[in-house]
C-alpha cells in the first residue's frame, strides 16, 4: 500500500534524554492523522524531523516515498508546514508573505499570483491581501499560514498545534478549513493537545507519551476500549471516573449511590488517561 508519510523506528536523543523512542507511523493518502499527547511528549520533535528541521538520531522518515534525510529537496517539495509559532513576516503584507514562499518553492510569478488569489479567497482573507501581517488578528494569521503552506500545492500538510491560543469560535473556523483541505485530497498530519480537536477532525489518532507511541486507532475504536458512558464523582479529594458499556448501567450505579455524579459520554481523553495515566495538557 502507498503511504504519504512513513516513519520507521524513529529515535531522537538530546544527550541522555530520549525524546522519541522507536516511533512507527504510516499515514494513508487523503487521511487526517492526529498525533495527540501532553506537552513534551515528542509531537513537535516528530514534525521537526519529518520536515527536515531537526536530524533524527536513527530511523527513517519518508514523505511520499522521498527520504527526508537523503532526498531532502525532493521531500521538502511534497509537504507544507504550519508550525506552532506564528512565523510570518510581520512587516510584509499577506501577499508578500505568499510571494516569498512561492519563490522559495520555485514557483513561477504567474502561478504564485493565481494561487495567491485562490488561496486568500479560500481562507477568507482576500480583503487582507495588501494588509501588513502585524495588523491581522491571531486567527487571521493562522489562516494565512495555512494558505501559505498550501501555495505550492503539497500532497501533505503538517499542522503543529494549529489552533493553539485561538478562541472557540475561531478554532471551529480553522477546523472547518482543515476538513475542506482534506476534501481537496491533501493528507494532513496534525499534532494537538486538544482532545476535541482530534476527535472532530481525525480519521486515526496516535497517542504519544514520553516519546513512545502508546496507541493508534480510529477515535471511535480508542473510545470504545473504555465503554460508552462515564460517571465522574468526587471521592475524597480526588475525582474518580467510572466507565460503563450502556447508559442504563451508569444510571443503575447512580441510583445505588448518594454522592453527586456527572454522567457523560466517554471521550478520547478517557482513553488517553487510561493508557498513560495522565491528562492531555
Amino acid at each position, binding site marked *: 500500500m502507498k503511504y504519504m508519510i512513513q516513519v520507521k523506528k524513529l529515535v531522537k536523543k538530546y544527550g541522555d534524554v530520549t525524546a522519541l523512542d522507536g516511533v512507527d507511523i504510516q499515514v494513508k493518502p487523503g487521511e487526517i492523522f492526529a498525533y495527540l499527547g501532553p506537552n513534551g511528549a515528542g509531537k513537535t520533535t516528530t514534525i521537526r524531523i519529518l520536515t527536515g528541521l531537526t536530524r533524527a538520531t536513527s530511523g527513517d522518515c519518508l514523505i511520499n516515498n522521498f527520504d527526508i534525510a537523503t532526498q531532502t*529537496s525532493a521531500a521538502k517539495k511534497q509537504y507544507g508546514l504550519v508550525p506552532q509559532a506564528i512565523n510570518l513576516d510581520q*512587516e510584509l503584507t499577506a501577499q508578500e508573505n505568499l510571494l516569498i514562499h512561492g519563490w*522559495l518553492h520555485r514557483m513561477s510569478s504567474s502561478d504564485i499570483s493565481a494561487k495567491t488569489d485562490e488561496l486568500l479567497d479560500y481562507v477568507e482573507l482576500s480583503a487582507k491581501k495588501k494588509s501588513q501581517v502585524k495588523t491581522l488578528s491571531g486567527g487571521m494569521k493562522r489562516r494565512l499560514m495555512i494558505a501559505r503552506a498550501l501555495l505550492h500545492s503539497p500532497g501533505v500538510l503538517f499542522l503543529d498545534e494549529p489552533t493553539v491560543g485561538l478562541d472557540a469560535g475561531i478554532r471551529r473556523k480553522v477546523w472547518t478549513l482543515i476538513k475542506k483541505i482534506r476534501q481537496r485530497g491533501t493528507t494532513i498530519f496534525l499534532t494537538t493537545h486538544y482532545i476535541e480537536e482530534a476527535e472532530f477532525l481525525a480519521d486515526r489518532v496516535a497517542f504519544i507519551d514520553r516519546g513512545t507511541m502508546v496507541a493508534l486507532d480510529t477515535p471511535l475504536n480508542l473510545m470504545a476500549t473504555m465503554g460508552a458512558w462515564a460517571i465522574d464523582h468526587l471521592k475524597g479529594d480526588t475525582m474518580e471516573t467510572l466507565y460503563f458499556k450502556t447508559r442504563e448501567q451508569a444510571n443503575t450505579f447512580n441510583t445505588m449511590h448518594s454522592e453527586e455524579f456527572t454522567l457523560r459520554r466517554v471521550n478520547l481523553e478517557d482513553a488517553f488517561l487510561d493508557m498513560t495515566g495522565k491528562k492531555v495538557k
Partner: protein
Amino acid sequence: MIQGIIAIYVREMLILRRRLTRQIPSWSISPFLYLTAFSYAVGHGVTIDGHTYIEFLIPGLIAMGSMTQSFAIASEINIARFYWHIFEEFQAAPISKFAYVAGEVLAGMTRAMLAISVIMVLGFLFGVRLHYGPAFFLALFLNSFVFASLAVGLAMVVKSHADQAMLSNFIITPMAFLGGTFFPVERLPEWAGAILNLLPLTHASRAIRSACLGDPVNVFSYVLLLIVGLIFFAVAVWCVEKAKD
C-alpha cells in the same frame, strides 16, 4: 538556486523598504557626529600625507560604515530566527544552504551600499570632493562581502540575540576604532601595526582611502579581502547546516 537567492534577498529588501524613511536618518547620525567632532573640533588644521583630516576621515568612515552596516544583517537574521521564527520557513523550503547565505550576504551588502551613499552625500555637503571610481566601489564591495559573510556565519552560531550584541562588541567595535579608520595604522609602533594589519578592516580602509584620494591601488589588499570573504562565506554555509539541531 537563483530563485532561492532572489526570495531571500527580496524579503530583506521589502523589509528594508518599509523602514527606509527611519533608516536613512539613523544611518546619517553617526557619520554626521564623527565628521563634526573629529574633523572640525579635533582635526582642524591637521594634515595627513598632504590631505586634510576630513579628507582622511571620510574614507575611514566609509570603510567602517560598510563594515557595520553589512554586519548588521546578523541582527536581522537573529530577529527572524529567535523572535519571529521565520528561519524555519527557509529551513523547510527546498533551497540550498548556499542560496540562503548568498541571499542574506547580498542583502547585507546592499544595506552597506545604501548606508555608504548617505556618508558620501554628507561628505559632499561638508565640502569634500573625493574620487569615487571603480577601485573605490570594488573595495567597498569586497569589504561588505567580508563582513556580511561573517555576520551570516555568526548569526547561525549564536544562541540568542543577546549573544549577537556581545559578539558585535568584541569583534566589530574594536575593529571600527583600530582598523585605520580614524588614524593611519603606520603611525603606531611596529608591533601594534603588525597586529592591526591582520584585521580585514585595516586593508579595506587602506584600499578605500587610496581609491578615494587617487593614490595607486594596493592590489594585495583587494586580494586579501576577496580570500577572507570567500572563507567567511564558506564557513557561513557550513554554519547554516549546523544550525539544524
